[in-house]
């Protein structure tokens, strides 16, 4: 009996923890990362389209009910421009230039999935960006990864447990192209509520203002460590 319980506990332990990938923890900017003699490439991933996110509406029926309840907000969200986020690349380049760093702006949107995959290891990049080292003659690559922008509203099954809030998620990181190690890893997540009431269809002015505020705050949080 005792053996059976032990085996069951071990199976449960392996099942629960065996496949989990450790999330990358923040890495503080190393002192020599942005030294004047270092050539740094700056790249930005594609700017995501604004959307609504309804975490917590778990079951299929819950998701359908939540989507229906927020349909006018979703329709409005899809009309919002997220181009302001792309300005972060220019801001990063300017900040680094002010510090005397030799900066090279990488053209176009960077798609990490188009680079060879590497094994997941803490504080090491899981993509091999070395071909950019030769192409742009750079030592380090600073990537701003834009992960999501729009509105987030928490649900517990069928019931909203929060008002919708403007949401931006991004990560800024520097990969040393010689060692593939992260010299900096900074996740940024901004949530801003509407000032006053939020439910003002069809233009949702309070939430729209919060949306643009969240974009500015996210840019500020990404650029600040580089100043």
């Amino acid at each position, binding site marked *: 009996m005792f053996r059976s319980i032990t085996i069951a506990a071990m199976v449960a332990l392996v099942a629960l923890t065996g496949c989990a990938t450790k999330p990358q923890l923040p890495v503080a900017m190393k002192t020599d990362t942005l030294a004047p003699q270092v050539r740094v490439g700056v790249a930005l991933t594609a700017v995501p389209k604004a959307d609504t996110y309804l975490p917590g509406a778990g079951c299929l029926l819950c998701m359908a009910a939540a989507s229906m309840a927020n349909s006018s907000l979703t329709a409005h969200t899809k009309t919002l421009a997220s181009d302001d986020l792309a300005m972060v690349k220019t801001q990063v380049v300017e900040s680094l230039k002010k510090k005397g760093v030799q900066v090279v702006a990488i053209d176009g949107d960077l798609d990490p999935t188009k680079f060879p995959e590497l094994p997941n290891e803490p504080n090491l990049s899981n993509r091999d960006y070395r071909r950019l080292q030769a192409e742009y003659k750079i030592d380090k690559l600073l990537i701003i990864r834009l992960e999501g922008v729009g509105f987030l509203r928490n649900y517990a099954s069928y019931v909203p447990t929060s008002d919708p809030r403007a949401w931006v998620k991004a990560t800024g990181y520097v990969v040393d192209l010689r060692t593939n190690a992260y010299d900096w890893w900074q996740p940024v997540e901004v*949530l801003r509520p509407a000032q006053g009431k939020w439910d003002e269809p069809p*233009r949702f002015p309070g939430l729209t203002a919060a949306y643009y505020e969240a974009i500015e705050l996210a840019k500020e949080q990404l650029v600040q460590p580089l100043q």
Partner: protein
Amino acid sequence: MKRPAWFAALWAEHCVRPPSWCAGLALASLAGLASAQSAPAPGTAAQAAGSTLSPAALPQVQLQTLAIRLPAETLLRFRGQSADEKSQGAAGGMVYPGGAGLAGLIAGVLTHAVMNDSIRSSQRKAEEEAADAMLRPYRPVLDQLLCAEVLAQAAELAQLAQKARIVPAQEVVDTDWTLKIAPVFYMTPDQRAVLLDADMAVEKGIGSDPVWRKRVRLMSPVTPAATTPQSPWLDEDGRRLRHAARHLLSRAYRIAMEGATQAPVATGEAAPERTVRFWEGNTKRFERGAVLKRDDCGWALVRNLRDELLSVSLVEGASMPPLSAPGEDCVLQEAGKAVAPQPAASSVPAASSSAVATAAAT
């Protein structure tokens, strides 16, 4: 602008309560109009229509009248601005009872919704009470700020183009314009600035629909750094706090009357929307809107997405929040060092500054 029209415009702009030199300007403008037959300035069409005007036949130029209606309250409403936003965030989850059927599920969902509303409502109330508690040290001064008194002082300070008087809420008046205002003042969480939120409506004539109706939000300049945040407001029997209330109201009057009497082009209605960054006390805030008008010291008039008007100092215009209000001599706060502003009582609005300069030139 030709000389007669220029004189007339000058008169119309600056001679709210005409001193003797204003009367001279009026006569000069009318005489000039009669002789030169030039295009009339606004408000002088009637005079320009007559080709042979003699001083005896000159019609009296009447100032338009304005009634500013008192709000229902006796004292100005002051509140603390809440910095906490927990009530707008997430409330609690809930596990629904299993095996209760569809009716049980619906009952569970409804109970959950009621609980969430109740939690957020009580959080909001607690936040507001905590913010209002900040005002306790200011109560001795705030309890002396009578609406009738401060609104009248603000009308005098505003130097409007109309002859303004304060009237009780229910009094029937026969004025050219009526201005209704519902002001609420907020102390910012850092207690460095006061902001005025006011619903305003301007009616032309008696009992007409408003020709202009908006909510305006105006920010006071920040106080200089002090040992306690209350002392700059409360020193000298609360002189700065009283002045801030008067000055904010006077700016609100000017915005309302300019909005009601000027064409949309003149008030910059076609400006493009963008995200602006401004000071709220010593804190940077963002707002999406159009910059309608820029003033010195980084101050600007912004129309936000709710069509409200904000008079704020933009962060781009100044690296630190200004210590002076729009229209006053610009005093900027230096980084890490507070510069003492000029005494509030000696500050002069822009309109009167330009009037003095013009008078000297004339």
